[in-house]
């Protein structure tokens, strides 16, 4: 499991961690019931405050990516494959809404954008 945190990014650190772990879960890199490392260990290794990691874990749990077993730790939630692709679509759509706003600002039409996406892909 790799996590990269940038202190110069505009995104808050807990958000960066949330994004990376949820992405790993959605694309199956972290399998169901995978045991996440302890919060305090992650904090120490990444040199980030315990509270920040705790918050990322809490948000992941709130959104159903992981679950907590008292005294044992946090685990990747059991996702049926179709649930995962649903989640993936929701995440992609959220990001696209923001990006499309930006392209609209540049005066591009939906067709223009689709053409450009194809080219870039």
């Amino acid at each position, binding site marked *: 499991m790799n996590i990269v945190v940038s*202190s110069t990014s*505009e995104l*808050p*650190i*807990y958000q960066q961690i949330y994004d990376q772990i949820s992405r790993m879960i959605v694309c199956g890199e972290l399998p169901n019931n995978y045991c996440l490392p302890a919060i*305090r*260990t992650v*904090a*120490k290794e990444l*040199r*980030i*405050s*315990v*509270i*920040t990691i705790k*918050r990322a874990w809490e948000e992941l749990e709130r959104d159903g990516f992981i679950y907590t077993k008292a005294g044992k730790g946090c685990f990747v939630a059991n996702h049926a494959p179709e649930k995962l692709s649903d989640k993936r679509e929701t995440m992609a759509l959220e990001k696209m809404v923001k990006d499309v706003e930006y392209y609209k600002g540049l005066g591009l039409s939906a067709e223009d954008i689709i053409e450009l996406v194809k080219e870039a892909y």
Partner: protein
Amino acid sequence: MEILSVENLCKNYEKFALKNVSFSLDQGFIMGFIGRNGAGKTTTLKSMMRLVHPNSGTVTILGKNFAEDEFYCKQKIGFVLGGVDYYPKKKLKTITNVTKRFFPEWDDEKYQSLLNRFDLDSEKRIDELSAGMRVKYSLALALSHNAELLILDEPTSGLDPVSRDDLLCLFQDLIEDGEHSILFSTHITSDLEKCADFITYIKNGEIIACTDKDTFIETYRLVQGPVEELNPNLSSKLIGVRKHKFGFEALIKTIDLPMVARIEVSAANLEAIMVHIERE
């Protein structure tokens, strides 16, 4: 569980006063105590430890009243006021032998392992140690009597960036077990960006914020823009405005953010927050 609680601590001097200083810290976390030079950081720490006598207020360590159980509380606390700089001509081992007599729970094995970890030679004299080594020696002494709470007054000032980083790493190692806690004062805000869980901010002897670091930072944003946008409504919400030839820059509470296209908003860091609040 609460390891430290300070309630309504007051200390009056002729020209300076601590006014109802209150904050608390849970076990297993790092709290940064920030403020300018002369804001009352050291006075607070000294009043807590009863090195100066507070006029009023209560300090509680692991549920025990400091004033009533001073011996117990002091065993649980590792207090470091800068590096060891007394008896500069004495060897470390001489100073250690004196220090350990005050602590029934002194752990020689732990002390030896800390000396190794910090690369300290107990045959050396204090005046042969660098500033960083002196701080490390103080920490070794504080940690060898099984203290659960470390209270450190500006442990990083005077250290080079590498030694500072080293020390912050050590702090995070210490709290990993969830039992040790650290309260350290500093005005080097980048130290706190890295490792602090909570921030307590003191200004002119008064606590103006005590919250977790992320919340504290997210409470504020930096704004920049042309001076023409500075209407009275906006100006009343800005903190520590600096006007210059080409516009203005200021801090603002996130909830007060204006919806004006010509104003550039960016995330603040601890240093920017402190500079603007102190400019106000």
